[in-house]
């Protein structure tokens, strides 16, 4: 099942059939993640429906990215399970990806010495079957899939508006384009569910609007989207539902309007002891007015995470 087979449709993946009823796509059941004595995610249960955009918010260190990593198999959860279409997802990133959950990273993790097109082509790996013998002897399957991979990848590049960057090294792309390229790469996996980890971090308002529009178009392809974001305007105007995670637990779940005005959420963000000058329960006090904080300050202390705390790769930090 490849996008190429549906050349007639407007978008590369638009033709992907959706057999199951438009309801539960992914269920997280009591997912708990402990690092030593620290419980980063505590019994989080979450349903993601087909074709919806679900926002995941929460103050720094609430365990959002850790939860992401549990969903994508990067951390095997201490307890609990994740089901996709009723099937338990194995805690292996590669198998989760093949099953149809793909993601982007909070700090961009492109293959930066590859061209834009090659980056996207890598994601076609688990949608192609060429084996070593096919490749060595240039058998028909290799040729067919190679052409197909190239075409499909190019179309995904065009889908996110990077059609002109095909042969540019991804490290030479501007920051905003790198974010979009990561999304193109994730989409080339033909996911049923796309996880976006702070897709607008570091973007200006114009780029943020473009990102919002892009995510709407992704939803148009019948791909569900789970998005972590600190930019509340972005979240509340984009999402169908919003979940607020605090200290590893689900605090509130509901429509943007419900979450936006929920006093517990406001308290979690602003802190109970602080009184704003105009703390009346008016729209001004809603979260939509909270801008993302300084990204440098967002970095959690590494010591809190014994797995990544011991040693860091370039730009490898985690909430």
């Amino acid at each position, binding site marked *: 099942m490849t996008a190429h087979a549906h050349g007639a449709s407007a978008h590369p993946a638009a033709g992907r059939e959706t057999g199951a009823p438009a309801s539960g796509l992914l269920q997280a059941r009591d997912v708990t993640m402990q690092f030593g004595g620290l419980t980063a995610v505590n019994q989080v249960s979450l349903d993601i429906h087909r074709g919806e955009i679900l926002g995941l918010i929460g103050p720094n260190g609430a365990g959002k990215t850790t939860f992401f990593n549990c969903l994508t198999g990067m951390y095997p959860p201490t307890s609990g399970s994740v089901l996709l279409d009723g099937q338990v997802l194995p805690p292996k990133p*590669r198998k989760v990806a093949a099953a149809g959950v793909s993601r982007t990273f909070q700090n961009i993790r492109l293959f930066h010495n590859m061209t834009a097109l*090659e980056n996207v*082509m*890598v*994601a076609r*790996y688990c949608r192609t079957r060429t084996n070593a013998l*096919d490749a060595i002897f240039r058998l028909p399957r290799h040729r067919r899939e190679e052409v197909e991979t190239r075409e499909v990848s190019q179309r995904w590049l065009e889908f996110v508006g990077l059609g002109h960057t095909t042969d540019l090294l991804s490290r030479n792309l501007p920051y905003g384009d790198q974010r979009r390229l990561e999304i193109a790469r994730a989409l080339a996996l033909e996911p049923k569910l796309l996880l976006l980890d702070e897709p607008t971090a570091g973007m200006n308002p114009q780029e943020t609007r473009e990102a919002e529009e892009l995510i709407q178009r992704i939803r148009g392809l019948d791909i569900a989207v789970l998005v972590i974001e600190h930019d509340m305007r972005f979240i509340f105007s984009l999402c169908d539902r919003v979940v607020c995670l605090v200290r590893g637990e689900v605090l509130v779940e509901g429509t943007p309007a419900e979450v936006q005005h929920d006093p517990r959420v406001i308290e979690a963000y602003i802190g109970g002891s602080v009184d704003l000058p105009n703390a009346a329960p008016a729209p001004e006090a809603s979260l939509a007015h909270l801008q993302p904080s300084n990204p440098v300050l967002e970095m959690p202390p590494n010591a809190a995470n014994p797995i990544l705390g011991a040693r860091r790769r370039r730009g490898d930090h985690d909430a």
Partner: protein
Amino acid sequence: MNRPAFLASFERFAAPGRLVALVGTALLLAAPMLPWAYRPALDDMTFWFAPSPLQWCGLALTVVLLACLVLGWVVRPQGRRSLGRRLNFNRGARAAAIALLAFVAVVLVASALELAGLVALEPGGWLALAGAMLAASGVLTLPRGEEPTLRTLRSPAWLQILGIVLALAFVLFVAAYGLDLDDPGAFFSFGVWAGVVVWVAAQVGLLGWLSTAAGQNRSVLVLSAFVVAFVFPFTQNGSDANMSIAAGVLIFAATAMGLNIVVGLAGLLDLGYIAFLGAGAFTAAVLSESAFATIGWSPPFPIVVLISGCVSALLGLLIGSPTLRVSGDYLAIVTLAFGEIFRISMNNLDGTDGPNLTRGSNGIPAIPNLDFFGFDFGSPHDIFGITIGRFANYYWLLLLVMGLIILVFTNLNRSRIGRGWVAIREDERAAEAMGVNTFGLKLLAFAGGAFLAGVAGSVKAHVDVSVTPDQYIFLESAFLVAGIVLGGMGTVGGVLVGATVLKLLPEKLRFFEDYRLLTFGLLLVVMMRFRPEGLMPDERRQLEFHDDDEELADEVADDVAAHRVGSVVEGTSAEPGSGATAKGDHR
């Protein structure tokens, strides 16, 4: 390439400088007509008006210098379209003159060392030195201009093919002539000369053009390279000694090429690779018809080759599957330990410390020659009146093995699997998250590389006649890694160059043997420090080693576009040049 500031001020004197250089060139043209030495030293440079081969080499270089000097004067470098105008002749002249000075100096010093001393030099030698010094000082005043980038230049196919053929003819000449030089000094001088020619070509810009041409005419390149390699034994006048060296180089190069899949493509440092070669060789030995073979079964050779490959691959799986999950660092040491396990085991399986399989340190001698359908590899054959000896026969067989390994290397590299390897090298966790089977791909590289080494080993057993454990020690593995590092990780040409240098130099420079390992160790350190990507690097590898070099990144981006033109020409679809235009439109 920063030049000292004071050199810039010289450029005022470019015109007189060029004249001085021309005078020096004239001297250099005249010098080979005179005797250089009192007695024959490197080669016979004692005659009037009869240049020796080395003098001819110098003369050829002088002509190149003259051409560069004149063309640099005549041709204005502002053109962007034609090939002739984009070459940078001033740079070529600089390189040629400086290199000529080095060449002349090496020849004179080597002669003086072999003869009684400087007194043994005749005026011709001094004249050449004076000419070279004049030329070198003259060219220092020439403006260097920018480094020529001819990679995006489009030129007609016939010109490109001609260029490839000429380049390969040069390679054949260097190999054939160089291998025949027995005198260390002459060999060294000739090596310097050959290196200089390549350097001048690079400085002028021809090398960049050639690499583009090669990329765009891959099939021509492959075909002519194999023709050249095939023809090579005929140039050696049936000298089996030379062909034995050539066969040795080929075995080494083939093994290094296999290792390059593991190190260069998948990025796994395997320090015990020689053990896989050894496993293949021992398998072939015990399955051969040698009277000392310990297994009384000797299947036909093609089956032995397969078994050898599989035994090695099996060992590769055994070592790789536990360690590849853990970390790249561990792999290096575990493979090293595996190499030791292999060596010790082969030594111990002698009947007293273990079952008798390998006859311990004695190894298995008297492995008979191969015999395919009545073609006996051990006996000489006459083809076109030239005697093709034992080693030439094996040379051709090894060429086949080499071809197989290159095929595997390049085709895997340019496939879904190759992309997966690059992704793993760049960011393994991201690759895994994008659905790439990282463990499987690493294991494929590791076991596949082992298989190829096993195949090469099975042939090596017959070429070497005997197989002993002390041929397969850690140092040999280190040499293989060095061959790759020196030549360039992830490229075919690089491995060929690296293997040739590492294997040929010690054969020819015997007097240097004691210091071989020391030099080699220091070479590794220096290479890693100053040019970790090797002499002929893979572009992506080069980028990885120079993560912060933006200029390089741009250059490579240009290059990718150029190669896209190539792949379009090679393929059938799309309009030619779409890659280049796409790039041009959007930058």
